[in-house]
């Protein structure tokens, strides 16, 4: 496995320009709402979540990570008729977890990105379902094949997307 423990000194922390910080999540949100109209398979993807993971891992700052997650999650909720905070809470935890993991692990290569995305996708779904059932009393349907399939598809797309997003990284 390409995941290796590294010391804090060896880990590089990246930052992003303000236009990229704002435009990339908004574009992801837009594509998530628009593309499933034309390509139904696109509904398996969760692009805003992938953005949360990418920014959190690259910045390696838990506070920034959780704030990014909360902001993107709340934006995602606003396009639905569901109460605000369902995706917000799930993405906050993912942002915090991904940035905390980024401090400890080298998550720059494709293999580790693939596994990290699968893990955080699963975490997101578990938190989302727990909050939706426990707090909002929503009747949700949990399907293992669907969840596993979606996690793998998201992980594949994440590897490609993260490579594209690497171009916007700026060293601190």
């Amino acid at each position, binding site marked *: 496995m390409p995941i290796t423990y590294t010391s804090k000194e060896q880990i590089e922390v990246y930052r992003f320009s303000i236009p990229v910080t704002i435009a990339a999540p*908004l574009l992801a*949100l*837009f594509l*998530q*709402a*628009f593309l*499933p*109209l034309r390509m*139904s398979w696109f*509904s398996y993807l969760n692009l*805003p979540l992938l953005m949360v993971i990418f920014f959190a891992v690259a910045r390696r700052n*838990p*506070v920034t990570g*959780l*704030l990014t997650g*909360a902001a993107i999650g*709340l*934006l*995602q909720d*606003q*396009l*639905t*008729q*569901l*109460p*605000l*905070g*369902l*995706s*917000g*809470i799930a993405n*906050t*935890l993912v942002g*915090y977890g991904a940035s*905390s993991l980024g401090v400890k692990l080298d998550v720059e290569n494709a293999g580790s990105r693939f596994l990290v995305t699968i893990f955080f996708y699963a975490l997101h779904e578990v938190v989302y379902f727990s*909050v*939706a059932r426990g*707090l*909002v*009393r*929503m*009747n*949700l*349907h949990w*399907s293992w094949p669907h969840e596993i399939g979606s996690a793998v598809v998201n992980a594949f797309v994440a590897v490609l997307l993260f490579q594209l997003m690497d171009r916007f990284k700026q060293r601190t």
Partner: protein
Amino acid sequence: MENIINRYRNVTILVAILFAQVLGLAIQVKRSNDDESSRLIRIWAIEAVTPLEKAIVWFQSGTSNLWHGYIYLRGVRQENRDLKQQVETLRLEQVRLAEDARQARRLQALLGFKEQYITQTMAAQVIGLSGSAQSRLFFIDKGSNDGIARDMAVISADGVVGKVLHVYGSTAQVLMINDQSSGVGVMTETSRLQGVVRGMPNGTVVLDHIMNDEVVQPGEKVLTQGGDQIFPKGLLVGTISKVEHGRDLFLNIQVKPSADLGKLEEVLVITKQEDREPEAADNSVVRAVDILEKKLPSVPDKPVTSPVGPGAAVSVTTTQKSPQTKTNANVVTPSAAKTGTVKTAPVAKPTAEPETTTAAPAVTNPTLQDQPQ
């Protein structure tokens, strides 16, 4: 103390942010009218995203129209010929149905039924989805500026799609019938059983509240029943695909929506519908007896100069209005259909029609029918 806070700064912020969101969720869940509490924030987000979607859809449909309307015209002539033939067939069918509808309206007028009529619709283009698998709704490119209001019914050429949930300036949110928070009052087409169609978490559609002892067959159509004051009566919702006996009192019935909810591009919003009593075709008061009189053999006039005898009886019988025919029915000949004209001509039609069952029995006295005067 300060040391502890600094040490656990990240966790403290995480807990604070989570707590704020949980609190917000609790407030929204507790308030019944949650759309008002979060409406402003939603408007900002939606107004930020939808213009881009509208622009792309506009560009895409423009390009598509240019290509299919002016450049790629292969097979259009043949298609045009086929469609013309189809129009002729449909015109004939339309005339027959129009006659049936007129009769139905006359009877409804007699009974004082009020019916919902669709008086105005507006075409709208689907520009985006919610982006969440748990929320089955879409956005259209028409909003309050165009006269769209909350709870208006949304349909497609194939059947019922959903209803308008939230309205914004230039866009509106439509909740589809397969969302788990939606519900449509329906009835089955042949057995006339009434129930509620609602969405399930996995996106399927079920028909609820049909008792276990009722007989429902797969393949039966499901129509709106009009009781919810959103959808007019008689719109096609879907077809029953699977029937199973449930554990409780009700059947588990799955419905396949007639509209393809996954591939919607354009929809119709019913912007105006009226409750009104159907009017009889001739705009006069019609009694059951009048309707029956048209259907049943009439008593012939007395011949002026005819001796009473067997020959006279024969002539009377031949001048009677035949019970197997009906006059004043509109018929469109194929040639007339081409020019769009409708001719009036008598056409044979069986007399065994439902409205005759409501007749006064005195008129159907068989002794009057065959008795020469």
